[in-house]
Every structure is written in structure tokens, then in C-alpha cells.
């Protein structure tokens, strides 16, 4: 149109042309094309003027973008705008980063928080997963499988816990079998995609040729063991998804949609494909959407956190247990040491602990308790402690007392006690032991003095008993006679026994006894006659005793007549008692002459 307009624009006058004709022609032309020419002129001005053009576009640009967007999910607009927007953003940041920072601030925080919490959740999940799998029976089986097959344990876990997972998606050019794009799920090992894609196409064609399928029918899927390959075909492209496990049928729909989308958006690139795969890089996002996976539902649901909690609990219990046990041991040990320090006869000089062994140095009296036994009683293994205790003599009251008892063998009836070096014996003991005590006790280590004031001599007690028994005996004679009254034999016999025992007891007491055999008369008759009578009576008893075997050296018969009456003679009974013989015992502690 503009060209035509140009061609029909007024022709400038030439000097050769006829002025009249020219004028008429101009008029004619003006009449015919003037309105059209003016319109054209205006359009031309509009096209030539940048400002005008910008003005025109500005009035529709928003609507145009809106309209394009409403036409469908066409990526072209986004792709066209992307470089400009990227450049704009870069420029904006370069000029003043604060502007963009301010604008992004409200979204950055939540985005970062979400990202962190997502990362933590994934970590916890994988931790739980690992824990659960490594603790369970199934986990052990999988470990064995991993060992057997040489695959990483993680892969085995994934294989078993996965419902399905799309591991790879191939976009293949249908005619050539060349791979246009290929996406892989994280941590999936793949073979060379070009070769795999080629082989897939070859298999497709092989299947088609082998089964003589008419027209465009294609192989929909292939499977071997746990892997399936799902294939979707469009006029120019093939979409192949490598799936581990069993994908639901609606995944097929997703593949169809993706392929239709790609076929539509890349139709010319596909049709004119000469081996250059660059343009198909843009299909990557669409392919990535197909890399989905779904895991098996966990039985019991709450199992996973529980596994972690149980494990954490066990660890905590072990740690607490260990800390508790260590503190308990230390506490027990300090208790044992305190007890050891208080133990009489043991002096602790130093204590230390190295390499889990306790070491105690000090002194121990042989009579102090065995420290190994104390250690066992406190619940320690005596082998885990070194007790280096040198022997010594303790002057601790308890030990001194124990030592005294060991050395003196006190008889029953004697109680020994010790305080500040003074050893005291209480109770009753034979004179022989008392002498032994008095002689040896002061030599015992730790004993400075002895106290026997509360110690009674059993021999002396017996002596006194015999003495009073003998002295209370009264041998009665008839009036004027020197023979005993009848019935006095028993008294005489008892007196003789007592006397014999008394002599022995006196010897035990380390002294000698003198027994006066005292003859008495009543007051009847004259004194001159009574005196010999009393003497005769004493001699009579002396002779009886001598005959019975009593040592006579200790016996001294004498007559006292009426001078030492036993009773007053107001009654006949009183007079009778005064006609008698009695005994008087005297002990002399002088050592006997050997």
C-alpha cells in the first residue's frame, strides 16, 4: 500500500511539459486523489514518526499481552520477555540494590523459613528412615541384599520403599531416534542417553516391523523386572519414561499432555530437525514435571518418630546411666574413704585416682579391719584399687584395748576398758590373772597406766567366805567335859573341810593363814580349873584335825576359859554355847618361805 501511494504521488513539473496541460492535469489529479492522498500522507507521517508509533502501541500493549496470555499456556511470551526482565533486574540491582531488596523483603523471610524447615523435615525423615531400616529385621535383610548385589544400601531401601519413581524421561525425535532432551531424577545412575534413545527407537521399529502392525501403532510400554518403560508417541516426537515400580494409569495421561504440549510448542523445530538439539532444551521444565515419585505408606504412621524417640531415649538413658553410675561410684568411693579415715588403726595419707584405678597410701595397725574387706563391703572390686598401707602400732583407744585383749586374755568376769592410755580392769578374776595383768599390761604399746581398783580377786572372796564359815562354827561340849556333845560330828566335819580349803586358798593368795583353835568354858566352876579345861578342849579339836591330815603348822590351840564368852549366861542355852571351841582365822600376806 505505501509503495503504491508513493508511486501515485504528484509528479514534480518538468521544464519540458506544457504549462497549460500541466496545470489542467494537476487540477484533475487534485480532484481525483486529493482526499486519498491526504489520508496516505497522514498514515505516512504516523509510520515515520517514532513518537506516533509508540503512542499507538502504548494504547494496546497491555491488552495485547493480556490477550496472548489468555490464549493458553504458551511459553513464547515468557521466553520473549525473560531476557529483558532479567536484564532489567540486573540493571536495577546494579544501580541500587536496596530497591529490589525492599521489594523482596516480605517474600524472602517466609521463603527462607520454608526452605529451612523443609530441609530439616527431610533430614529428620531420612534420619528416621535410616534408623528404622537399620534397626528392623527388614533393614538387616536389605543390608544383606545390598552386600549381595553390590548396590548402595540407600538404593536398596529406595527400591523397596518406593511405590513407583520415574527415574528418567527421554524426549526422542521420532524419525531419527535421536535424543532431544533427557532428564534424570536425583541420584539415579543412567546409561548413555543417546544410545538408550536410539535403542528404544530401534526396539519400537523392531516391534512394529515384527508384528506387521499397519500404520502408526506403537509400542506402549516395556517392562523387565522392576523397571517399566512407558512410551507415548506424537507425530514428530516420542516421550519415554523409565519407571521403577508401578505408576498409576493417570501418569499416562500426564505423559500425553506433556507430549501434546511439546509437539505444539516445538512443532517447527521438530519438523525441521537436522540434529541440533539446542532448541529442545526449553522443554526440560516440562519433562522435569514428569519426574515424579510416590512412596509406600508407612504402616502405623507414627512409627517413624517413635523409632527416633526410642533411639533418642535409649541414647539418653545410656548417657544418664553412665553419668549416674560414675557419680554413684565417686560418691561410693568418697563414702568408703570417709569410712576408711574413721576406721581406728588406719591412717590415710594420700588418695588419688588415675586411669580408672583408685590409690590409697597410709598406715594400718595389724589389728585394724582388713581394708580389702571394707572395699568389698562398700561394693568395690578390691582388684580395682591399690591400697598401700604400711604396718604401724596405733595408740587409738579402740586398737589399744583390742591389743590388750589379744595379749592378756582376760577371763570371763573381767571387763577391760581403755581411755587415754589408762587400761582398766573391772570384775572378778583369779589372783594369778590379776598378777599377770599387773605385770604385763604396762608393757603393752599405748598403755601408760593401769587401774585395778574395780577388780575383785575371786580367791580372796572364797577365802573370806571360808573364813567366815569357819569362824561361825561352834563346837559344843558338855559341862566339865573335853569330849564333844553328841551330834557335833557334822559341824566338826564341815569345819575340817573349810579349814583345809582355807589353807589352800591362802596359798593361792600368796600368803599364809593362822587359825586359832579357841577353847571356852562357862562361868561355873573356878577359873583355875576352867583354864586348863578350855585348853584341853582346844587340844582335843587340834588332835582331831591333826589326825584328819590338816597341816598343824597353821593351827594354834589355846584356852581362854571365860575371858572371851560367846554369849551372856542368862539362860542355859547361853551357858551351853560358852562350853565350846571356836576358830579365829588370820591371814598374813607375807610371801611364803620357799
Amino acid at each position, binding site marked *: 500500500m505505501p509503495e503504491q501511494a508513493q508511486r501515485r504521488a504528484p509528479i514534480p513539473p518538468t521544464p519540458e511539459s506544457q504549462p497549460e496541460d500541466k496545470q489542467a492535469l494537476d487540477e484533475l489529479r487534485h480532484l481525483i486523489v486529493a482526499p486519498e492522498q491526504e489520508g496516505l500522507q497522514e498514515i505516512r507521517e504516523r509510520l515515520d514518526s517514532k513518537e506516533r508509533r509508540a503512542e499507538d502501541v502504548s494504547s494496546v500493549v497491555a491488552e495485547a499481552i493480556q490477550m496472548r496470555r489468555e490464549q493458553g499456556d504458551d511459553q513464547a511470551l515468557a521466553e520473549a520477555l525473560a531476557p529483558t526482565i532479567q536484564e532489567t533486574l540486573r540493571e536495577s540491582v546494579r544501580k541500587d540494590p536496596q530497591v529490589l531488596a525492599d521489594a523482596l523483603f516480605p517474600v524472602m523471610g517466609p521463603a527462607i523459613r520454608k526452605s529451612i524447615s523443609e530441609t530439616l523435615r527431610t533430614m529428620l525423615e531420612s534420619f528416621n528412615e535410616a534408623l528404622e531400616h537399620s534397626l528392623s529385621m527388614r533393614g538387616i535383610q536389605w543390608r544383606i541384599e545390598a552386600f549381595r548385589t553390590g548396590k548402595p544400601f540407600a538404593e536398596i531401601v529406595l527400591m523397596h520403599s518406593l511405590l513407583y519413581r520415574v527415574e528418567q524421561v527421554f524426549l526422542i*525425535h*521420532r*524419525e*531419527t*531416534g*535421536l*535424543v532431544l532432551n533427557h532428564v534424570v531424577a536425583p541420584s539415579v545412575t543412567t*546409561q*548413555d542417553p*543417546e*544410545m*538408550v534413545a*536410539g*535403542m528404544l527407537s*530401534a*526396539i519400537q*521399529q*523392531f516391534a*512394529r*516391523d515384527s508384528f506387521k502392525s499397519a500404520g502408526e501403532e506403537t509400542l506402549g510400554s516395556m517392562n523387565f523386572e522392576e523397571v517399566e518403560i512407558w512410551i507415548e508417541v506424537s507425530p514428530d516426537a516420542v516421550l519415554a519414561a523409565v519407571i521403577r515400580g508401578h505408576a498409576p494409569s493417570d501418569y499416562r495421561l500426564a505423559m500425553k499432555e506433556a507430549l501434546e504440549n511439546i509437539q505444539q510448542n516445538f512443532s517447527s523445530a521438530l519438523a525441521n530437525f*537436522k*540434529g*541440533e*538439539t*539446542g532448541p529442545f532444551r526449553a522443554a526440560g521444565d516440562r519433562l522435569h514435571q514428569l519426574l515424579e515419585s510416590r512412596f509406600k505408606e508407612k504402616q502405623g504412621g507414627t512409627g517413624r518418630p517413635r523409632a527416633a524417640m526410642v533411639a533418642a531415649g535409649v541414647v539418653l538413658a545410656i548417657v544418664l546411666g553412665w553419668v549416674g553410675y560414675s557419680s554413684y561410684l565417686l560418691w561410693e568411693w568418697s563414702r568408703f574413704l570417709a569410712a576408711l579415715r574413721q576406721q581406728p588403726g588406719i591412717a590415710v595419707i594420700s588418695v588419688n585416682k588415675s586411669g580408672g584405678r583408685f590409690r590409697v597410701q597410709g598406715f594400718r595397725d595389724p589389728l585394724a579391719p582388713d581394708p580389702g574387706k571394707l572395699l568389698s563391703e562398700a561394693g568395690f572390686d578390691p582388684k580395682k584399687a591399690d591400697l598401700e598401707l604400711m604396718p604401724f602400732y596405733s595408740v587409738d583407744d579402740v586398737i589399744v584395748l583390742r591389743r590388750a585383749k589379744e595379749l592378756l586374755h582376760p577371763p570371763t568376769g573381767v571387763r577391760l576398758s581403755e581411755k587415754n592410755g589408762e587400761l582398766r580392769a573391772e570384775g572378778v578374776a583369779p589372783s594369778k590373772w590379776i598378777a599377770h595383768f599387773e605385770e604385763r599390761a604396762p608393757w603393752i604399746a599405748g598403755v601408760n597406766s593401769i587401774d585395778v581398783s574395780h577388780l575383785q580377786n575371786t580367791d580372796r572372796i572364797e577365802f573370806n567366805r571360808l573364813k567366815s564359815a569357819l569362824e561361825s562354827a561352834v563346837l559344843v561340849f558338855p559341862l566339865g567335859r573335853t569330849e564333844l556333845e553328841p551330834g557335833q560330828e557334822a559341824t566338826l566335819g564341815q569345819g575340817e573341810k573349810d579349814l583345809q580349803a582355807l589353807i589352800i586358798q591362802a596359798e593361792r593368795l600368796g600368803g599364809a593363814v593362822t587359825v586359832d583353835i579357841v577353847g571356852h568354858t562357862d562361868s561355873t566352876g573356878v577359873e583355875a580349873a576352867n583354864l586348863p579345861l578350855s585348853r584341853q578342849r582346844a587340844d582335843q579339836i587340834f588332835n582331831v584335825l591333826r589326825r584328819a591330815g590338816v597341816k598343824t603348822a597353821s593351827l594354834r590351840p589355846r584356852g581362854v576359859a571365860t575371858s572371851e564368852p560367846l554369849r551372856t549366861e542368862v539362860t542355859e542355852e547361853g551357858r551351853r554355847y560358852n562350853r565350846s571351841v571356836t576358830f579365829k582365822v588370820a591371814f598374813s600376806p607375807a610371801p611364803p618361805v620357799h
Partner: protein
Amino acid sequence: MLQKKVCMLGSFSVGKTSLVRRFVESIFSEQYHTTIGVKVDKKVVRAVSQDVTLVFWDIHGEDVFQKVQISYLRGMSGYLLVADGTRRQTLEDALALATRITETMGKIPAVLVLNKCDLTAQWEIEPDRESKLAADGWRVFRSSAKTGESVEEAFSQLTLAMLKQ
């Protein structure tokens, strides 16, 4: 990234697989030949200052019993026609196949490889014949998969021819 589908064509036991084996990386076993009649291998070559990925379709040999499935050839950018220099018939079969390809698919870049050139004593192709083939527009190579002679050259010539297309 530029990719090209290249077919290896020729009669049974002319040494196609051996030629490819000298030249490419492979992940598939040679059993594929006997099962589906084709084996796909790959080689990245540098030509005209760019990397080109050659995807080889090594197609099971054509002989009296078995015709090459033309469907395997769809979309190829070029092909390597292999004949055994010690068996004249293999050259005739190869050329017949080339004719069939041109008829069905049009003119496609190709090189002709006369293999087993190490076996000079048994060589059956006269030099005249070779010159005539060259005059007919064939890029002819005498190669040996055994010694590796001219193998790289044949492949790179084919690559250049495909890039010019």
C-alpha cells in the same frame, strides 16, 4: 549439541561391527544384532569446530536370507556402506542396497568402505572398479578393522559430508 544418526550397512560378516568397535563407545552387547537386528552405539567427533554426536545404528547384515529393514534407516543423516574387499559379491550387494536406499529415501551422504584391505592376497576388487565407483560419486576407502587403517578417515569424511548437507 548436534546429533546425527548414521547407519552401518553391508552384507553379513563384512566387518561392520568390527569397524564400529574400533571407533565407538558401546554399552550394548552384540547379541542385539541377532535379536532385533540392530545395535546402537555412539561417538562424539569434532568436525568444523563443533562437537557432533554420531549415533550409529549398526544394522544386521543383508544377505540372501535377510533383507535390511528399511524402517531402521528412517531419519539417518548418512550411512557407511561396507563391503568385504575379498568377496566381490558383498560389494554388489552393498551397491544394490545403496540403490534401494536412494530410491526410497533420496540422496543421502554416504561413504563406501572396502574392508579387510590387510588381506591383499585375497583382494578381489580391481583398481578400475574403484576408480569407476569414485567417478560415480562414491567416497571410497580401503580400510582394515584389523589394523585400523582409514577407519577414522572414513568416519570423519562422512561427518563432513553430513554437515555440508
